[in-house]
């Protein structure tokens, strides 16, 4: 599903990722762990093409990134659901409309859109908050809305960048449980986190990054 072959990414004064090689199969749930500045976010950005790698080959959901035209980037991104640390919810739209965005972009009909949005809000247990403004929700609830937005289109991959970074530690386990439920249905999930508690004793695969190098590939 995701393949990195000798991938490097350089910025002006530093190397963010150095000669990274790994492969993630369909339906896997993988954690990317490392301290701040280790290259976790850069690695995710290379997957959703917010950045371009300088060396090596990347393949995402059958798309060979090096050969991808700019006009095809939206097609690749439609295979991916995003969960960000800073949520990226739109303040001028309510919860329902925020979740519906991904479907609107894909041109889903009004009727199907309504059903799918309520179903995904049900997964994160926020159906009753459909009419609320994101500002009126707690951090944990906002993150669950973001997860609902990510899963509503039933993507093949979900990328989460520090999904528990801005929420109460007590709620983190709940968020990870939601990810596990989604993964159980066959969605590939990639979670970047510096928090080891999230994957400890989970039995899930953990890719460890340090200073742009892949230093470990083990079970959590």
């Amino acid at each position, binding site marked *: 599903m995701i393949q990195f072959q000798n991938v490097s990414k350089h910025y002006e004064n530093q190397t963010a990722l150095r000669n990274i090689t790994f492969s993630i199969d369909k339906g896997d749930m993988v954690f990317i762990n490392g301290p701040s500045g280790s290259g976790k976010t850069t690695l995710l950005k290379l997957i959703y093409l*917010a950045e371009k790698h300088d060396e090596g080959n990347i393949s995402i959901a059958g798309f060979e990134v090096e050969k991808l035209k*700019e006009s095809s980037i*939206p097609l690749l*991104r439609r295979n*991916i659901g995003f969960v960000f640390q800073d949520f990226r919810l*739109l303040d001028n739209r309510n919860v329902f409309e925020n979740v519906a*965005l991904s479907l*609107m972009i894909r041109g889903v009909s009004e009727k199907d859109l309504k059903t799918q949005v309520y179903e995904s809000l049900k997964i994160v247990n926020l159906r009753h908050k459909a009419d609320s403004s994101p500002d009126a929700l707690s951090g944990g609830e906002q993150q669950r809305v973001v997860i609902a937005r990510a899963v509503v289109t039933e993507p093949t991959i979900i990328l989460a960048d520090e999904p528990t970074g801005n929420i109460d530690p007590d709620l983190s386990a709940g968020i990870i449980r939601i990810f596990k439920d989604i993964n159980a249905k066959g969605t590939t999930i990639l979670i970047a986190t510096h928090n080891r508690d999230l994957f400890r004793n989970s039995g899930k695969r953990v890719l460890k990054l340090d200073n742009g190098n892949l230093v470990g590939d083990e079970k959590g």
Partner: protein
Amino acid sequence: MTSYAFRLAIQSILHEKWINLLSMITIAVCFLIMAITALSVYNIDLATKTLPEKFSIMIYLKDNLSSEDSKNIINTVKKDTAIETVRFIPKDEAMKELKSFLKNTEYVLEGLDENPLPDSIEIKLKKEAVGPDSVKKLAERLKEIKGVSEVEYVEKFLSSLYSVKVGFKTLGIIFIIIMSVGIIFVCYSTVKILFYRRNKEIETYKLLGATKGFIRAPFIIEGSVIGFSGGLLSLIGIVSLYYTIILRLSLTIPLFKSIIFPAHIALFLPLAGVTLGITGAAIAIGRLRY
């Protein structure tokens, strides 16, 4: 996708109502100035179009020509494709016309033993042939005809009339171009501001897999709505102006009666608004990058 784009555009128009309203009013004022300019140019053009019908050239013939010679000259003149009608005026008839023209001052002709006026031919030209250059060339051709003594026409009037007409048209076109650029700039600025204000939203759209068309469409619709509304407001303005001021003034000043309101120009305003609005919006969005 189209219905979503329309919905997003309408949401944005209502959400940013003050900035949009201000732009619509600015565009309406620009269009109103454009419409007044177009109205003036149209009426001046219309007025000058009727003048060629009154324009004539006089050919004075040499003395002592036989009636056969005069007939030959008339036939030669008639062959010219620029000429619409030809009227032969014998010297006696010319004298009669002069006397009726002089009326009470006929005494100035006393003491003349014989009629000093020559036989003449009055010619009227086809509308399209009335122009400073074409008339000058025709006059030269007519002068070449054997038996013609002189050719006369109001050269200065003709050239100044055409200078005024061309001048007004040119000024009008320049003015309309400047105003059009102004309208594009207003739409450009408005959409640019809206685009920056919704930057976070646009970045989210991009990540969620929105195509460039999906991102652009609401802004293009918004630009066209702003332009259309501006055009419509100016249409209401120009119609009100015509019916409340010009028609009332025509009751006291007869000159205003001749001002015609061209409906097709007025209806053109909202359409032009849409076109200029879309142009401004398209420039404002520019090239989107993922």
